[in-house]
């Protein structure tokens, strides 16, 4: 096992398109790092560069203390799990698992033993003599996982391994992979993992740390809680969390205490926000998660007055969509606390919980309300 370092890593394609803009990332030994972002954010390209399947056009990749930029994939000490499993269709599961070891000319009994150990861990012993086309999606993905595991690599690379599975199976595979990672750690051979996904649920539940990417830039690298509580910018704030954080243009005016004005309505934001502020008065982007927006009676103190435009009943909670001027807020209310008399067109008060309010620079998108703690 080894740590992985990306230093000013760049990727420019032959046609001049720059996909990765000098990113720096350090994945510690035994860490589970998730690369997440919308499609086209170059997360897969980054992973493929680490794997050696794409050439590096700038910067360097280090695995352990070795620069691997110019090494072929097989010499980098990595193993990769692909989105569509990429099992060799003409080989039985047993040979799929052992292909890498056979190429290395390991002794036969050793290969046999490794195959047994790995198939035991992943519960695929009874599949060893099947062909890939005789496997279900979940089984195929476990075999693909086994093919990576058997090599005992320094770094595991996962390229959206669960996105071809149905929702139920995805959840169980998620647990299986994190369990496996913990198990290897407790057995004293921690696995360094880089896991690419576009699914924030996977990212939040699996990652020790998460690297949020956009357009070939890293937006923030942090553990899931920090990412959720203290997003570094509006992009991360909007990307992480379900439903999305409300991001609404507003005007900040501080006269001793911070006030926010939106559609002609002004509320006091409370001393907590005032203390955190890092910006001068003027236009800002107000950010508040739907879970942190209280739905009150119209006219409640320090609340925006809005009109309900839609109600979505989700079972355990209700999503309340309300318009304040031109802006639309979404608030999530637990079903048991939801006032069932509310209807579309009713007026309600929307009060952001001050401690959970974020303000972002409307130009740069940077979070300007993080001052009190070290970000």
């Amino acid at each position: 096992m080894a740590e992985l370092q990306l230093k000013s890593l760049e990727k420019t394609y032959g046609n001049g398109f720059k996909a990765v803009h000098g990113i720096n990332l350090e994945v510690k030994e035994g860490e589970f790092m998730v690369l997440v972002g919308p499609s086209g954010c170059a997360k897969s390209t980054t992973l493929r560069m680490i794997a050696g399947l794409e050439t590096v056009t700038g910067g360097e990749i280090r695995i352990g203390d070795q620069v691997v930029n110019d090494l072929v994939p097989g010499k980098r000490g990595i193993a990769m799990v692909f989105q569509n499993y990429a099992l060799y269709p003409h080989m039985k599961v047993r040979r799929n698992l052992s292909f890498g070891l056979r190429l290395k000319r390991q002794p036969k009994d050793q290969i046999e033993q490794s195959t047994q150990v790995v198939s035991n861990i992943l519960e695929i012993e009874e599949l060893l003599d099947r062909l890939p086309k005789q496997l279900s999606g979940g089984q195929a993905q476990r075999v693909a996982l086994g093919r990576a595991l058997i090599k005992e690599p320094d770094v595991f690379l996962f390229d959206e391994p669960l996105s071809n599975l149905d929702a139920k199976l995805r959840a169980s595979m998620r647990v299986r992979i994190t369990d496996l990672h913990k198990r290897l750690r407790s057995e004293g051979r921690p696995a360094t993992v880089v896991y690419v996904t576009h699914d924030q649920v996977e990212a939040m539940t699996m990652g020790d740390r998460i690297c949020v990417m956009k357009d070939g830039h890293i937006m923030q690298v942090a553990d899931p809680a920090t990412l959720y509580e203290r997003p570094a910018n509006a992009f991360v704030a909007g990307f992480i969390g379900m439903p999305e954080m409300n991001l609404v243009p507003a005007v900040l005016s501080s006269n001793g205490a911070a006030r926010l004005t939106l559609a002609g309505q002004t509320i006091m934001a409370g001393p907590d926000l005032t203390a955190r502020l890092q910006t001068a008065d003027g236009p800002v982007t107000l950010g508040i998660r739907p879970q942190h927006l209280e739905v009150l009676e119209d006219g409640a103190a320090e609340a925006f007055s809005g009109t309900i435009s839609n109600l979505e009943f989700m079972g355990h909670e209700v999503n309340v969509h309300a318009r304040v001027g031109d802006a639309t807020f979404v608030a999530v209310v637990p079903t048991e606390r939801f006032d069932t008399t509310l209807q579309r067109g009713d007026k309600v008060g929307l009060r952001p919980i001050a401690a959970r309010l974020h303000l972002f620079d409307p130009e740069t998108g940077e979070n300007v309300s993080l001052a009190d703690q070290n970000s």
Partner: protein
Amino acid sequence: MVSYSELPNPAHNTGDAPTQLELKLRRKARINSALRYTVLAVIGLIMVYPLIWLVGASFKTNSEMFSSPGFWPSEPTVQGYIDGWKTSTPYTFGHFFLNSLWIIIPKTIGTAISCTLVAYGFARFDFPGKNILFATVIATLLLPNVVTRIPQYLLFRDIGWLDSFLPLWVPSAMAGDAFFVFMVIQFLRAIPRDMEEAARVDGATTLQTLIFIVVPMLMPALISVCLFQFMWTMNDFLGPLIYISSVEKYPVSLALKLSIDTTEAFAWNQILAMSVLALTPSLVVFFMAQKYFIEGISTGGVKG
């Protein structure tokens, strides 16, 4: 028009007798398909009749052949096969079959190997001049064979390959058949690269990836290539006619013509008997590999 399958399924309304309209429609559909199959069968028979006649006539005597039009011999005899096999030359027909084999085997194997290598290069790697080279390959596909006959002949004459099998198979074994290269490329393009990337991550070199991963996946296409090459070479008449001058080296296609040339009165039953034999290898090979063959050409064609 209502097709048969769209009609109400009697299984669903058991007990209810079909209405007049249903019966009428069903009868109409049945007549329709009967008509279609009859037309198909008749046309099919017309097309295949010469072949059936060929097989039947090979068991006839020479005199019966032109006296009765039917394909069934009145006095079946294998004399045509026996005489035909002996030929009018010092060699038996078996010798000519072997000659054909000595051309076909290196040509087929060479084609499969060389086409795979070239196609793999074009389909999977970027190299300077790739587009121009690929355009050249496609251009040779469009070039009529006849155009290159004379320059090729002069070339092989200068190398000293005349009256040997070499001019017949060496160009193909060097991926000279652009059609096959193109076919394999199209097939390869339809195969996702992930398996090859997985193999590279597993530590395989480019050649190992090709041999252990790509070639097994290419099998249907390669079988089609071999099959085509086999049949076309077996049937090739012009190539051997140009390059091979001594009877000792004649392949089957020339040997068949031989029996027409040398005898004063044509022994048609011998010629037909040997024609049947000459057809057999192609047919046997085709039916053996039919499953892969169809998979090979259809996948290459549709997805490419």
